[in-house]
């Protein structure tokens, strides 16, 4: 299985710059990322944030599309369970993505490449920590080949 992956590896692990797409809910995690900014907490530039109103807005399709288009990791971040701005949205997020995690595992995408986490508007530190943590793990795993659309040039 992994033979194909290693033989088509284009980039050297040394110069591997992972791409990580983070979906952040407007009320907690996006604000947490803003706080990380105002507090000048460093995290790598490989992480690119997409703003969504609530983590429950994130369709599994968006995650799959990101992997398909060459993302090496995907993060979905929302308010802490119980603190959702829309009352119950993140409970749906939690359930939906526990299912998607199973699917991704089945497809062969390593667990560390997809992370769902709860980061509140006051947790700039946690935001930076989670981003660094995911990046570090993805960096160790190397480029993602599974699900990737080979016609898409990154």
């Amino acid at each position, binding site marked *: 299985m992994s033979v194909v992956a290693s033989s088509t590896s284009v980039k050297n692990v040394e110069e591997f710059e992972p*791409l990580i797409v983070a979906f952040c809910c407007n009320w907690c995690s996006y604000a947490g990322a803003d706080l*990380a900014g105002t507090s000048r907490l*460093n995290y790598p530039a*490989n992480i690119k*944030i997409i703003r969504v109103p609530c983590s429950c807005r994130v369709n599994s399709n968006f995650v799959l599309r*990101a992997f398909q288009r060459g993302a090496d990791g995907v993060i979905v971040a929302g308010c802490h369970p119980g603190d959702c701005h829309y009352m119950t949205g993140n409970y749906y997020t939690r359930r939906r993505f526990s299912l998607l995690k199973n699917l991704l595992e089945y497809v062969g995408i390593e667990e560390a490449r997809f992370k769902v986490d709860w980061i509140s508007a006051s947790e700039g530190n946690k935001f930076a920590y989670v981003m660094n943590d995911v990046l570090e793990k993805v960096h160790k795993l190397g480029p993602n080949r599974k699900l990737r659309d080979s016609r898409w040039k990154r």
Partner: protein
Amino acid sequence: MQRVGVFICWCGTNISNTVNIDEVMTAVENMPGVAYSKDYQYMCSEIGQNLVKDTIKEHNLNRIVVASCSPRMHESTFRKAAEAAGLNPYLLEIANIREHCSWVHKDKEAATQKAISLTRAAVAKAILNDELIPGEVGVERRALVIGGGIAGIQTALDIADAGYEVDLVEKTPSIGGKMAQLDKTFPTLDCSACILTPKMVDASMSSKINLYTYSEVEEVSGFVGNFEVAIRQKARSVDMEKCTGCGICLAKCPIKTALSEFEEGLSNRPAIYTPFPQAVPNVPVIDRETCMKFRTGRCGVCEKVCPTKAVDYDQKDQILNKKYGAIIVTTGYDLIDLDYFGEYQYMDHPDVITGLEFERLVNAAGPTGGKLIRPSDKKKPKKVVFIQCVGSRDKSDRGKSYCSKICCMYTAKHAMLLKDKYPDSEAYVFYIDVRTAGKGFEEFQRRAVENYGVNYIKGMVGKIFPTNNKLQVNGVDSLSGEILQIDADMVVLAAATKAKPEADDVARMLSISTDSDSFFSEAHPKLRPVETHCAGIYLAGACQGPKDIPETVAQASAAAVKAIGVLSKSKLVNNPCVSEVDKSICSGCLACADMCPYEAISEKIVEEKANGKIVGRRVAEVNETLCQGCGGCTVTCRPGAIDLKGFSNKQILAEVDAICR
């Protein structure tokens, strides 16, 4: 054909220091759809905004991307600018290249590439933006204030002053809050009751203010302008209309052993009680847990002695359902539990008291009638040790990492009050730092040291040993390195303030956020200090963070103004980013209706032709005034018939694609 205009802000040097603006400009010019691009030092300034407005007209732009700070900061600014240029404000997108890029990355090349990528995503999304027109919704012109301390009272008075009705809900039997318990206030040493009680009376006399004491907010739904609130009015067991406040029942009640909450447990109260003589409303409450009538069925003295037959043992809790346009949260603070501070002997020795207990002990209306005596043997204290920062600025689990802000000042005040009462007494204050930032504060504290001779010792107390009627305080003077032993008669602990234990529940009920210490979070720490992220809900007082009285009152008036801003409008515009059902695809399963937390989705029967006949078909329909735009239904929808305006599937996928280039 979409003609996108991209405006890149330098933010002075905030962005341009880490992001190579020229490189971004070159990249932007080659992005599909971009018709015009421009960079400027301060895009949010008047010149910058005019630049946006003018170029929209000049270059006939129909989509705008501003690459600048967070959309949470200036999205509304630039939307207004777009609107002024005749463009629908929702055709604008922000690329966050400050908080999410230049401020968090050091490597210029990487930051530049990321800025390009984020801008590309914003352009891709903007191309798919549609004109959105917000709906309008009426405003219930009445405010709810939760918490009847000084913050709540001030807010209610200010709103009533502007001519709007206010309901003030207070959990305890009387309004007044912590300030009513205080003796004197710093830095003027004027008596707390003398400045508070007139305000309490004003609140109860105002025709615009309805007081709901001994009541709690139980449920909140709805949105700005139209909150629906259920208030539980707990059974007082006394008819508010009939009671004249004569107080005979209080005197005759055979139970005298319940601990007075108002006196911080330093004295007892009857089972039927008003928290303090100046209570507003001056109507007693029966504490059903201690009342003999409720426990054993026998007694009924208060009913017999009441001249107006106001006592009613059968009273039940009542639920009031009301509508409000704005809500102000002023739930206040508490002192931390001192269970884990065993070294100070607070739990074991009656002469170790908190600052709040000290307030009651020196108060003329307090349990000792203003005579400052030791709770243990009723003797005058000769030596009093004050310990500051008990639990404040304490990173361990038992304390709070923040500064409680009020303790330095009230400790100075306490020491002065002690010296006023007993000029021959000695006062020692152990401190980490003395923080006296505030008008007249430093002068006040210096007065305590220079005129009153209060001994300030920089250092902490290690342990207190109770020995022969005394409290042996063992501390260190960290400036001289000397180990001190003071045989004190009394120790006053400046216990840290904390958020109310129910703050998390209140936050959940209102869908507002709290910080890690359970204080409610404001929308912006500097620029939106009294607003929350939930439109129409405002904060005032110590529920948002430790605060003294002047700050609390200032914040209360500010919150009132914000609420009046909502109440003074006859119509509010809705968020137009709401869900929309494509009825031709909808299968009518209504899974979306089940997940919607706002009950904004309902079924609708559409009529259509099938085999020459008109038949009804069930589909889902979104009520745009109720929908808050979370977008959860879009994912629930099995056939994919629901999409969220402003954050459509296509738009988000376009962003993903653009980022993955």
